[in-house]
């Protein structure tokens, strides 16, 4: 415990939420310091909160935030805690607001096609509730079965189906937000919470997408609905080299198919990993060095037409169709990468490893450069530290509603978490920093979807957000959170207060 929360403050929290929803027991606090991203066990207790509260209403959140602001207690919102960049993890103790009990569906509007929710509902569960109405909410991260919509707001999440349906920023129409002072605001495209486009005033909604818990707590969301797909067509094509697969991406991406949901390139190291540690338990043919996966969703007629064109492009680019079983089931496993097998190689041994994934947004022209440099960096660290393993790279279409342009690039690193000591933890954060620097050298962004709040790449935020962008972030943070209570220490935003103190 960091000791920032007094007995009197806990008593006030009990007055707000009741004893059952205020947790001070060590297990309940320590478990809220845990995230999927590997972290040294010996440091775990350092990042546990002093107290956990589980509000159920906006009014309770307001009361908690006002208390924290009055007493200058750090406060960290936590949803599914499936993020890979520690947004839901306190750096200075204080109060963790675990929002999982705020999971009610408030309105399903089948006339204006919106759903309004308390935001801590999971997408899989929401879509099960929406299915009888013939509609769905198509946000589809690799954590689809386990992540929660308020966390998706916090990270400004990316969707596997984004080239067809857009990403979180496109499908959250409006939000109710509790600011660090306890004031409640409604942010959206303009006025009414169901309006999709407006030219009135600033579009404040975007400020609160990707805030990583530094600007407040989302308490209500109105989301876009789409017709539930009648049909889906996934297809995997194998290529003899990475270069062949890389070249084939362009005709797929520019196929002019409105139903095209995504184009994904697997590099040779990823194919090798899947061959030895298959996420779908389907053998990959030995001759393959790269794979291009595509998928279309929509009405039956549209998807059938898309299917014919995609199969033709696959053939014309020299791709080998890998069959229905592999295409359907490996695509299905893309929706749930948190079921990855979690074992890797250290020297000649197979050992239990935790999965970590570094990401970036990179334009098509720069993908080969980034691939080469990232593998060089990973291999250099693996040679020096036996706790790392290289699980290969993916390249996903990143542009909303279109398949071309820039790509979400990921490298999966296996980490033998039990063996992470200070030396190897330092090496890991340095590896992350090196990887992020390559992304900037390529004219890209450090993160397309995970956020960049973790030790290592966070140092490069002011480098990426140059020419006054980061300075503006600091001013906005200080304006909205005058006492720096909301997730302090993240995104280097403490500088807002240090610079103010120094005049």
């Amino acid at each position: 415990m960091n000791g920032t929360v007094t007995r009197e403050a806990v008593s006030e929290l009990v007055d707000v939420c009741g004893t059952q929803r205020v947790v001070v027991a060590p297990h309940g606090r320590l478990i809220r310091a845990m995230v999927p991203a590997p972290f040294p066990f010996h440091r775990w207790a350092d990042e546990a909160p002093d107290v956990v509260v589980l509000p159920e209403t906006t009014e309770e959140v307001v009361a908690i935030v006002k208390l924290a602001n009055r007493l200058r207690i750090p406060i960290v919102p936590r949803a599914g805690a499936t993020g890979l960049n520690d947004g839901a993890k306190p750096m200075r103790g204080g109060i963790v607001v675990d929002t999982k009990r705020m999971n009610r569906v408030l309105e399903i509007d089948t006339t204006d096609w919106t759903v309004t929710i308390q935001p801590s509902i999971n997408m899989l569960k929401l879509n099960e509730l929406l299915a009888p109405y013939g509609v769905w909410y198509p946000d589809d991260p690799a954590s689809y079965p386990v992540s929660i919509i308020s966390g998706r707001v916090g990270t400004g999440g990316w969707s596997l189906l984004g080239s067809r349906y857009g990403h979180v920023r496109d499908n959250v129409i409006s939000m109710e937000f509790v600011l660090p002072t306890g004031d409640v605001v409604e942010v959206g495209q303009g006025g009414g919470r169901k309006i999709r486009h407006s030219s009135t005033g600033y579009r404040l909604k975007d400020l609160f997408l990707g805030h990583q818990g530094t600007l407040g707590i989302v308490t209500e969301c109105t989301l876009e609905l789409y017709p539930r797909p009648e049909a889906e067509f996934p297809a995997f094509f194998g290529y003899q080299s990475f270069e062949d697969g890389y070249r084939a991406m362009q005709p797929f991406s520019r196929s002019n198919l409105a139903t095209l949901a995504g184009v994904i390139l697997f590099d040779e190291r990823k194919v090798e990993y899947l061959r030895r540690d298959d996420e779908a338990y389907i053998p990959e043919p030995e001759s393959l060095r790269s794979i291009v996966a595509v998928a279309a969703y929509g009405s039956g007629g549209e998807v059938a037409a898309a299917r014919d064109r995609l199969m033709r492009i696959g053939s014309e680019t020299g791709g080998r169709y890998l069959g229905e079983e592999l295409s359907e089931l490996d695509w299905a496993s893309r929706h749930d990468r948190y079921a990855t097998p979690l074992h890797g190689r250290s020297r000649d041994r197979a050992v239990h490893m935790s999965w970590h994934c570094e990401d970036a947004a990179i334009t098509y022209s720069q993908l080969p450069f980034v691939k080469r440099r990232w593998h060089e960096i990973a291999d250099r660290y693996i040679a020096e530290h036996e706790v790392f393993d290289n699980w290969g790279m993916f390249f996903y279409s990143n542009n909303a509603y279109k398949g071309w342009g820039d790509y979400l690039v990921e490298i999966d690193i296996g980490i033998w978490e039990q063996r992470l000591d200070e030396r190897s933890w330092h090496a890991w954060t340095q590896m992350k920093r090196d990887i992020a620097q390559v992304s900037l050298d390529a004219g890209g962004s450090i993160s397309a979807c995970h956020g960049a709040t973790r030790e290592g790449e966070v140092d490069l935020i002011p480098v990426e957000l140059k020419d006054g962008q980061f300075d503006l972030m600091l001013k906005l943070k200080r304006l909205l959170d005058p006492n720096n209570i909301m997730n302090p220490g993240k995104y280097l935003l403490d500088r807002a207060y240090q610079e103010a103190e120094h005049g």
Partner: protein
Amino acid sequence: MGDQERLPPGVVDNDGHYEVDPAIMTVYPQFATDFEVDRIVKARLEYLYWVQRHFADRVLPPHAEEPDEPQQAG
């Protein structure tokens, strides 16, 4: 009896954290009975087929399906 002695075979205490003894993970693939392999693979495939049904009403095959009976002109 010490804590280390109470651990089941193949498990080690690594500074207070229990893990499979790396010494027994030098063989790949690890031995598993046919029953275990069958159960793991079946469970995973069942889950993945469920995922497909969750996202769309049906999955199209790679080529247009032939109609059951030839269509009669006129």
